[in-house]
């Protein structure tokens, strides 16, 4: 091509691409002056310009590196069951990620199960492999009940592996996960770990990487320290460049946010300084582990490794006793001595700290009469013969422990992509937050109130609110564009949401803008607000008004068959995008802010299987100034469910998406909420929430009050209480701890549950229990892949005395059953049919029996019911019946209402006291969840109230009347910042 012509093409191309679409063709006609080939040449470039998207925006080296990574991942993750490696046959993969994979395997010579851990990377250098073997074998010589035994070091196609003891349980990291453990358990595990360290140290082996992820807690409550000596080997490998992979440099350490912190948080000061290490480094790290076990919090925290290092070297951690006031002062002293920065002042030998822990244990035992868990107690249940139920050999998900084994070498050198900016514990989780338009301040809600924090200095002040505006009533926070005021959604009573403006400095009284409104978004010119309007329970429409609350107009009408969420303004304030949930799926729609028809922007049918998902939290859509719409969604086809953040560019003129959604940020199982961005769109700020249901148990005193309830189930998955066993000594609960729902029982004095029902293809539903005659265990089975349609499952009966389970009946719809404690009365089956809850008698042998009664309920919301202990009556509560409990006399088949004292909010679940003389009800008040006792005449005795928005449901009385169990949902939510990058990827 002639240079002149090329130059001409270039000029016209650049000029045209500056113009809006509709002006281009006329410009081309004029500029090309009849030269059609010139015009079509430019036209072709322009059209490819639009298609370019991310074309070659990632450097080629990254593309290749990703291809290598995905090849490797395939290699290391595709060892199928049955594969023979050396004398091991792979059974299944039990853990692992990018950094090494662990398989359960059978040793075909010794006929035992082993865990095979493949180490990352190839070891092509035979010297390196030999050295690795030597070191690991020295460590494998350690034979101790609290050290995971290494059987063999091997190599398979250049990948080294370790064969070790197969353990059943969880890592301590899983067990702790942000929550303080009971003192007894801390002492028990602590003594065992100290014992393991003592033995290893006496043989000259230093662990160098003691941390919760390297400590396993078996189902019997035994600690097992993993990976002795491996840290040293990996250090050696690293230094000598044998594994040149993942050599995280010091600079990377210092700027690495998030994930790497877990690996540096337990380092000793001498380790941070890179000094020669001796056994005392392990004692410091052990101190950090003890601190975390007793408080649920890391002693040295920070957003980057540099901050953590500074804390380790220079700062004293907050006294453990302040975080956990129940801690004995002696425990505080022990932890303090282990965490001495100067190793000369620290414990010098593991035996010293073990002795101190043992002494404390003895003292606390003589102080407490409560029995600690002992093996004898645990095995009692087994000897009763009930383990003959259809039990699969317990196999816990080993999870996180396995891929973090290679800690420092694998420290991921992430760029500052996602950064956690608050570090609140679950007890003080953050329900709402918003970033200021200039990006300098974060407004967020905690137990201490509504706070504003400077992002740069970290300085935090509270927004002063009047006494009649308690902060727990705040549901949502937005900044006005001028940065001087906040827009708050307030829930002042159980059924009302309203919008309020409040000065950031609390300089003036909060001003109410509007009633019956929520999920507001303010236009960038500060003039208009779009929000959901209507009663709390809906249906809501989407309305727009001036920020003062004037001239309201409806944008999208309310209807019963769809729910709207998160309306947001486009950058030019011409469009509104919002989330829609209908019975047939979810979508994001867009409408002109002036009104007009809706267009679908995202739905799983038009968006390559990415379904928007906003059901849990408000603020799940954010429109960046560069026109990328960021939303929370899940990919239907993806194996791993769970939400992530997706982005889709929207064309300003047409309001249409020009391409499919792409991943914006991964959320690793967190639920996103409160997404906000700055005026320049450089960062996006959101809350990342995790929820966790656990079984709690409390003793009841003579007056029926609950004494110091405690958490019974101690893992990071969900546990839902079902019923006490007839002897009142154990609680049955359903848990998904093994990734599907199974039925467990746990002694109330124990920390270790025992699985009693599982099956390979079915998922247990909630609502399981013993028949009144004690002969049967009844439970629900549902197909694992139950869709959104009413599930069809079956009720099974399992003979307590042993034998295989049999089907009682098939069931479709939302069903539950309750059995009275005393024999001679039938169980009751309750099934929702439309908006009615229909009751029938239920017999373990004959199935569904005669109809007993029915009641119209608010099935869209919450309801609960329970049969009285003597089987003569049944009680129902739901959100649709305020201040009352409906009672069905099962003999006469007649209903009556118990009118409850007013003002106790909405009731969501109910239980009968063991004596049948009162109800235990969980209820929702505007700013808290509560549990109350209601007498048969309707008088209220408060039992538990918590301001932490800890959701309580499913109370269950023990047959002997001494205990109450219930489900409490704890949330863990912190604010994160994501660098939004740019739409063009630069």
């Amino acid at each position, binding site marked *: 091509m002639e240079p002149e012509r090329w130059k001409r093409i270039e000029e016209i191309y650049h000029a045209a691409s500056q113009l809006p679409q509709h002006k281009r063709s006329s410009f081309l006609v004029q500029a090309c002056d009849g030269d059609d080939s010139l015009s079509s040449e430019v036209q072709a*470039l322009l059209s490819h310009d639009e298609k370019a998207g991310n074309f070659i925006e990632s450097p080629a080296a990254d*593309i*290749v590196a990703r291809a290598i990574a995905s090849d490797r991942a395939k290699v290391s993750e595709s060892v199928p069951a049955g594969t023979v490696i050396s004398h091991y046959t792979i059974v299944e993969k039990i853990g692992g990620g990018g950094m090494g994979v662990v398989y359960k395997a059978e040793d075909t010579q010794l006929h035992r199960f082993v865990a095979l851990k493949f180490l990352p990377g190839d070891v092509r250098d035979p010297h390196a492999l030999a050295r690795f073997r030597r070191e690991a074998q020295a460590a494998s010589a350690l034979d101790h009940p609290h050290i995971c035994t290494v059987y063999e070091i091997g190599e398979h196609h250049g990948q080294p592996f370790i064969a070790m003891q197969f353990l059943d349980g969880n890592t301590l990291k899983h067990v702790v996960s942000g929550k303080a453990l009971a003192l007894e358990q801390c002492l028990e595990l602590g003594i065992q770990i100290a014992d393991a360290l003592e033995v290893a140290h006496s043989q000259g082996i230093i662990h160098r990487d003691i941390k919760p992820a390297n400590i396993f807690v078996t189902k019997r409550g035994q600690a097992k320290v993993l990976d002795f000596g491996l840290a040293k080997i990996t250090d050696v490998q690293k230094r000598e460049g044998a594994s040149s992979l993942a050599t995280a440099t010091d600079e990377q350490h210092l700027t690495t946010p998030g994930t790497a912190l877990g690996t540096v948080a337990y380092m000793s000061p001498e380790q941070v300084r890179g000094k020669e290490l001796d056994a005392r480094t392990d004692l410091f790290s052990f101190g950090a582990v003890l601190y975390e076990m007793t408080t649920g919090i890391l002693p040295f925290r920070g957003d980057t490794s540099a901050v953590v290092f500074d804390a380790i070297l220079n700062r004293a951690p907050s006294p453990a006793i302040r975080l956990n006031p129940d801690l004995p002062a002696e425990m505080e002293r022990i932890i303090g001595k282990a965490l001495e920065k100067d190793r000369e002042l620290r414990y010098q030998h593991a035996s010293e700290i073990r002795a101190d822990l043992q002494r404390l244990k003895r003292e606390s035992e003589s102080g407490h009469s409560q029995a600690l868990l002992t093996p004898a107690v645990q095995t009692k249940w087994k000897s009763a013969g009930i383990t003959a139920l259809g039990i699969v050999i317990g196999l816990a998900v080993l999870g996180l422990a396995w891929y973090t084994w290679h800690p420092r070498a694998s420290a991921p*050198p992430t760029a500052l992509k996602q950064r956690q900016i608050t570090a609140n514990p679950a007890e003080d989780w953050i329900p709402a937050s918003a970033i200021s338009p200039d990006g300098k301040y974060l407004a967020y809600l905690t137990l201490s109130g509504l706070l504003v924090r400077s992002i740069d200095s970290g300085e935090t002040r509270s927004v002063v609110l009047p006494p009649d505006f308690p902060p727990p009533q705040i549901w949502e926070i937005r900044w006005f564009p001028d940065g001087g005021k906040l827009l708050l959604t307030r829930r002042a009573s159980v059924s009302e949401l309203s919008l309020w403006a409040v000065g950031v400095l609390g300089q003036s009284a909060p001003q109410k803008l509007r009633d019956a409104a929520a999920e507001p978004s303010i236009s960038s010119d500060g003039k208009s607000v779009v929000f959901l309007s209507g009663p709390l329970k809906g249906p809501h429409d989407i309305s727009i008004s001036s920020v003062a609350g004037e001239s309201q107009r409806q944008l999208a009408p309310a209807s019963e068959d769809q729910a709207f969420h998160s309306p947001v303004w486009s950058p030019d304030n011409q469009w509104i995008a919002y989330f829609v949930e209908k019975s047939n799926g979810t979508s994001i729609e867009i409408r002109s802010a002036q009104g007009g028809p809706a267009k679908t922007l995202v739905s799983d049918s038009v968006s390559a299987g990415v379904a928007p998902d906003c059901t849990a939290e408000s603020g799940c859509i954010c429109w960046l100034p560069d026109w990328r719409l960021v939303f929370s969604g899940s990919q239907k086809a993806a194996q791993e469910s769970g939400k992530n953040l997706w982005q889709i560019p929207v064309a300003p003129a047409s309001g249409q998406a020009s391409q499919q959604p792409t991943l914006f940020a991964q959320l690793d199982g967190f639920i996103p909420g409160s997404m906000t961005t700055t005026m320049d769109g450089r960062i996006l700020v959101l809350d990342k929430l995790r929820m966790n249901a656990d079984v709690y148990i409390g003793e009841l005193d003579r007056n029926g009050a609950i004494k110091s309830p405690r958490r019974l189930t101690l893992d990071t998955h969900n546990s839902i209480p079902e019923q006490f066993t007839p002897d009142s000594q154990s609680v049955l609960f359903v848990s998904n701890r093994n990734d599907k729902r199974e039925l467990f029982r746990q002694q109330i004095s124990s920390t270790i549950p025992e699985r009693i029902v599982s099956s390979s293809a079915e998922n247990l539903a909630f609502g399981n229990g013993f028949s009144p005659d004690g002969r049967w265990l009844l439970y629900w089975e549902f197909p694992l892949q139950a869709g959104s349609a009413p599930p069809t499952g079956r009720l099974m009966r399992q003979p307590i005395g042993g034998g295989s389970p049999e089907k009682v009946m098939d069931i479709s719809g939302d069903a539950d059953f309750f059995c009275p404690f005393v024999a001679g009365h039938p169980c009751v089956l309750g099934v929702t049919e439309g908006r009615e809850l229909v009751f029938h008698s239920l017999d373990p042998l004959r199935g569904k029996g005669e109809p007993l009664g029915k009641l119209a309920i608010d099935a869209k919301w919450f309801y609960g019911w329970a049969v009285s202990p003597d089987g003569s009556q049944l009680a129902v509560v739901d959100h649709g019946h305020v201040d009352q409990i409906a009672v069905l006399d099962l003999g006469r088949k007649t209903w009556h209402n118990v009118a409850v004292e007013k003002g106790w909010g909405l009731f969501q679940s109910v239980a009968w006291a063991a004596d049948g003389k009162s109800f235990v009800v969980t209820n929702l008040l505007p700013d808290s969840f509560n549990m109350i006792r209601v007498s048969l005449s309707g008088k209220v005795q408060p039992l538990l109230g918590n301001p932490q928005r800890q959701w309580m449901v499913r109370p269950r009385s023990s047959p002997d009347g001494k205990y109450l169990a219930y489900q409490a949902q704890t949330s863990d939510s912190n604010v994160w910042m994501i660098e939004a990058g740019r739409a063009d990827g630069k």
Partner: protein
Amino acid sequence: MQQPSSGDITQLLRAWSSGDESAFDQLLPLVYQELHGRAQRYMAHERSGHTLQTTALINEVYLRLVDLPQRNWENRAHFLAICAQLMRRILVDFARSRNYQKRGGGVQHQPFDEALSICSESPTQIIAVDDALKSLASVDERKSRVVELRFFGGLSVEETAEVLKISAETVMRDWKMAKAWLLKEISENGLHGA
């Protein structure tokens, strides 16, 4: 592994840029090591959910291998330019060697819609871009170098401007048009060749 010292690397790069093919063989493992390191980090990140910031691999090579304080390589721009060429060669060789091409004839014979999928990042894309870039060089040498430095070298706009001694704005304009041109070239070849 015995690594060449930084002085050696300087020599090797010089030798390679003046046509000594044996120097390439000695440089290759160094770059490969970095590539594998990066792959490893991707693997670590896939689990943790972070995406890796695309720091230029060349910069990593540069920082690691060149004796930074003494800066005995007289001209950083020159170094970056040669590195980008080296990277292009290695990455294209890599993509070809791994049988990432979908059919025997390579990308020229892909049907149109498949050519469009070239937008999705894959080693195939690298081969296609390399081929199209040769055509671009004959029309507009500077634009082809912009793409070489940015895509293969992983350099930022500013670094590219520094190497080519042009303004950052010009780099952006060249980059925009080169992308459209390359995409057009790749799709058209697909159409004609099918």
